[in-house]
């Protein structure tokens, strides 16, 4: 349905030019989120928007080859796993939930450890939001395109 309506060379070239820059900015937002505006949620939404834009202008067959829905499910699950581990592992080492100072990373300690901990949590949130939004889109449109 969507594929037949937007077979336009202008839209296709603009979208294929735009998508790498959206993804680069999304990765910047995720990795920069602990000392600036942005963070895991916003970066994950931007990543998901790039994949959804690809699905909108490429149509089902090609877009599912480029980014299969199973991969979105796997990435969302991995993101949740990263967040859960960053929360639970400090509990196993004597801290409380999400207490980054107790993460068992060799060679770093103190403020640097907290800094890395919030980075790990932001990465997990970003992956989880990305996978979930792509999955919402895929289940929403289903097999009807």
């Amino acid at each position, binding site marked *: 349905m*969507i594929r037949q309506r937007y077979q336009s060379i202008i839209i296709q070239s603009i979208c294929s030019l735009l998508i790498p820059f959206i993804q680069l900015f999304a990765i910047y*937002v995720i990795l920069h989120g602990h000392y600036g505006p942005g963070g895991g949620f916003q970066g994950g*939404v931007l990543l998901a928007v790039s994949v959804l834009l690809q699905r*909108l202008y490429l149509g089902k067959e090609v877009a599912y080859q480029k980014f299969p829905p199973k991969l979105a499910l796997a990435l969302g699950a991995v993101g949740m796993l990263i967040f859960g581990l960053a929360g639970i592992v400090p509990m196993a080492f004597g801290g409380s939930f999400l207490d980054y100072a107790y993460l068992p990373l060799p060679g770093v300690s103190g403020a640097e450890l907290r800094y890395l901990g919030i980075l790990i949590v932001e990465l997990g949130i970003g992956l989880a939001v990305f996978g979930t939004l792509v999955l919402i889109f895929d289940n929403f449109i289903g097999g009807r*395109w």
Partner: protein
Amino acid sequence: MIWQIDFWLLVILIVAAVTALSLHDLLGAVAALAAYSFFVALLFAQMGAIDVAFVEATLGAGITGVLFIIALFLTKRRTED
């Protein structure tokens, strides 16, 4: 805080909201809604809430627009009231 910027952003905001409510072409209404959330984001940024503005710009102008357009293509484009 500059009150002129605030004032004109609010005026454009109200115009976009009324346009989104009154259009019968639902695709145009979705576009007006995306413009509405983008001006809300500008207003948030102007008031200093950069993080909230970021969420509003990505979610309001990005994801909800895409989801509304998909819903339109799955149903039909014009209202009947």
